[in-house]
């Protein structure tokens, strides 16, 4: 049988970073094909190539045995490929019908023929979900219904291949059941589905075959559900680790106690204790609630319920109060949440501890500068010019300055959210050293990271988050990639 879609030897590099190495993906007509891999394995890039958002550097794409060139989203649509993104790309204020015909309106002369569009939209939606009102604005629909509208749009473009990226991230179990039925029906009509998900139970329920990627390479194509879940996970994760020696300085003294912390569906009933000298890693998939948990602990977002105790005392819910109590957050989004771009390094470092540098209402600028210089020498800021605007430094050096901010104040509990994102290898090692040094000095440290080797390298203990909950609390001996992945990936 001629495959519906055959990608062969696809290479892709962004700058000097090669993200896909000769990847091959073969999908049969009417097949529901899982595309699996960890964060950063290359799934998104592959989907982006398929949907014409980026172009491959090398490799071929064939549809029904005929080679095609996809260099724009329009090419992809014309080739019969449709994407249902995780973040649905719809215009909230336009109606269902208008969204379906967006960019491809039915016309009467120079005018859009609304009535015909609505009739056509109704016809397309009838077999999918007849309850959707085609004249309602998209924003009034539930996510599941909006997904169905996207599918209708794909069908209207005569899509032969529909790629779904984490389609169930905002669906209820009942809505997922409906989606499964719908996928079955599409498959029966010979539409091929590429299904991207982290959730093993879903993959095993809807897919017939799965292609597994790791670090931008094709690892295996396996039949589902014939292959055991454990083996699939192992294929996704199983990477050898470069072991670095790990020193533990953990004590029994509780510095931070979190209990029953919840916010919406992002964080559910999180509770743990953190000790002086301890480095606690927090692992989990993107969207598992790690960053949200950090923001709750730092008082940046309001918790629906739960308490945060620092040094044995409950602390009110505001960044200022938590900082005063001895907590410091190094946020994930450095540009958005960390730096004041135009202000000098010294101002950025001194910002949370202005009171300490103030006498009779005036900032002692010389003292602030001297202290900042000393700290920046310690974290090896390059160049060591604390009067330069922080925005003129490289990402790694900005990060060092933001970390230095908490060294300047009386911080006991350090929260690092993705501390090495976008930072070169040298600076990474320096940040690891700094974390170890903090622990040695009796500070308590939390490190959130998507990179398992990083978590494993720095942590005395690891909490694994899954769907907003703390799914596991692993001691040093139990910290392995497979163990973390087993708890991080939802499966039934």
């Amino acid at each position, binding site marked *: 049988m001629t495959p519906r879609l055959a990608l062969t030897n696809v290479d892709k590099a962004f700058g000097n970073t090669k993200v896909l190495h000769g990847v091959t993906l073969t999908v049969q007509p009417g097949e529901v094909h899982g595309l699996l891999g960890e964060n950063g394995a290359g799934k998104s890039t592959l989907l982006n190539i398929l949907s014409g958002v980026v172009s491959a550097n090398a490799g071929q794409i064939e549809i029904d045995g005929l080679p095609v060139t996809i260099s724009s989203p329009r090419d992809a649509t014309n080739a019969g490929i449709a994407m249902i993104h995780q973040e649905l790309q719809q215009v909230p204020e336009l109606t269902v019908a208008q969204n379906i015909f967006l960019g491809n309106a039915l016309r009467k002369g120079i005018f859009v023929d609304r009535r015909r569009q609505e009739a056509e939209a109704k016809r397309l939606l009838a077999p999918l979900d007849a309850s959707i009102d085609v004249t309602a604005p998209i924003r009034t629909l539930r996510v599941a219904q909006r997904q169905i509208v996207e599918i209708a749009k794909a069908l209207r473009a005569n899509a032969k291949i529909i790629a779904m990226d984490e389609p169930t991230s905002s669906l209820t179990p009942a809505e997922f059941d409906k989606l499964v039925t719908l996928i079955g029906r599409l498959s029966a009509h010979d539409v091929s589905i590429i299904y991207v998900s982290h959730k093993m139970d879903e993959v095993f329920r809807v897919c017939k075959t799965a292609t597994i990627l790791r670090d931008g390479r094709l690892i295996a194509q396996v039949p589902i559900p014939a292959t055991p879940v454990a083996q699939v996970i192992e294929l996704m994760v199983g990477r050898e680790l470069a072991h670095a020696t790990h020193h533990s300085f953990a004590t029994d003294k509780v510095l931070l106690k979190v209990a029953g912390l919840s916010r919406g569906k992002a964080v559910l009933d999180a509770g743990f204790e953190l000790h002086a000298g301890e480095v606690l890693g927090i692992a989990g998939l993107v969207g598992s609630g790690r960053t949200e948990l950090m923001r709750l602990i730092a008082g940046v977002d309001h918790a629906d319920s739960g308490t945060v105790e620092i040094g044995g005392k409950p602390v009110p819910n505001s960044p200022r109060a938590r900082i005063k109590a001895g907590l410091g*957050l190094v946020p994930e989004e450095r540009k*958005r949440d960390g730096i004041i771009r135009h202000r000098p390094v010294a101002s950025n470092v001194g910002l949370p501890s202005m009171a300490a540098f103030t006498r009779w209402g005036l900032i002692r600028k010389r003292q602030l500068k001297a202290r900042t210089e000393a700290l920046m020498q310690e974290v090896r800021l390059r160049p060591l010019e604390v009067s330069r605007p922080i925005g003129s430094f490289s990402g790694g050096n900005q990060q060092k300055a933001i970390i230095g901010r908490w060294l300047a104040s009386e911080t006991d509990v350090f929260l690092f959210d993705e501390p090495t994102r976008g930072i070169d290898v040298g600076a990474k090692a320096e940040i690891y050293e700094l974390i170890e040094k903090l622990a040695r000095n009796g500070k308590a440290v939390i490190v959130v990271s998507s990179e398992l080797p990083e978590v494993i390298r720095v942590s005395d203990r690891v909490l694994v988050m899954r769907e907003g909950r703390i799914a596991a609390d692993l001691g040093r001996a139990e910290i392995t990639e497979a163990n973390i992945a087993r708890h991080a990936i939802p499966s039934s």
Partner: protein
Amino acid sequence: MSKLLSRIRFRDAGTLIGLIIISTVFASLSPTFLTAPNLLNVLQHSSINACIALGMTLVIISGGIDLSVGPVAALTAVLGAAMLVAGVPIPLAMLGALAVGAACGFVNGALITWGGLQPFIVTLGGLSLYRALALIYTGGTPIFGLPDSFRALTNGTLLSVPNPVVIVAVLALLAWVILNKTPLGEYFLAVGGNPEAARIAGVPVTLTKMAAYIISGILASVAAMILVGRLGAAEPTMGTLWELDAIAASAIGGASLMGGRGSIVGTLIGCIILGALRNGLTLMNVQAFYQLLATGIIIIVAMLIDRATSGKQGG
């Protein structure tokens, strides 16, 4: 610090060069321009705008805008004048006027921070609201009959420098100290530069914004008192379009309307540029319509130069 200072000075030096060029042109065209009495005249005429612009600069730096300054001045002028006419002691009446300005600033700040509304919209509403209050209170007629002892405060001189200039110079020094030497100034710059990062770093964002609007309100009432003293009457229509002059002076002086950047020294020079321009053109008997044209051109040219040079500085 030297590099930071040199960077700020670089921008202020640019504004100063602008002032020097304009002054040179007028000095060569009119023999009276560069005389001491005329220069003091320029400063005196600029002092009201400078007083307003100091507050505006702090508000703009903290990421906001205050369009309500003119009507706030008018409201404090009529209420302050009413108190004076009613025989309230001068210091008390002046404190009362400042309190009215502070209250208006507080209302603006409260709507912006706790109410979560856009500064532009809130103060645009304030622009009508405070004006309306002033008009309703007076029935649209000016208040006369201010005590001479009050008028003497604004019409006197200190070492032959007009008192309004002295008062505004002192206020400017205070504003400069606040912006450059106190935590509040650091917070203004941080909140305007990146409000979310500032909040996460523990900056009291609400209080900071509130402080900016309250300071702006108080400075508007100081400007009102100065003008009332000079005119000998409080008009409810006082202060029309003051906000635009103040914004123009701040922008010429290097304040970024995106927030996070600005300079007190720059703003003062900006005020003097606008004042010198009007004075010089008047000396040359240029029609008022053309004065307006020249003001517009100066603002836009200043912004173009700013854009071109800050690009070179790497943003």
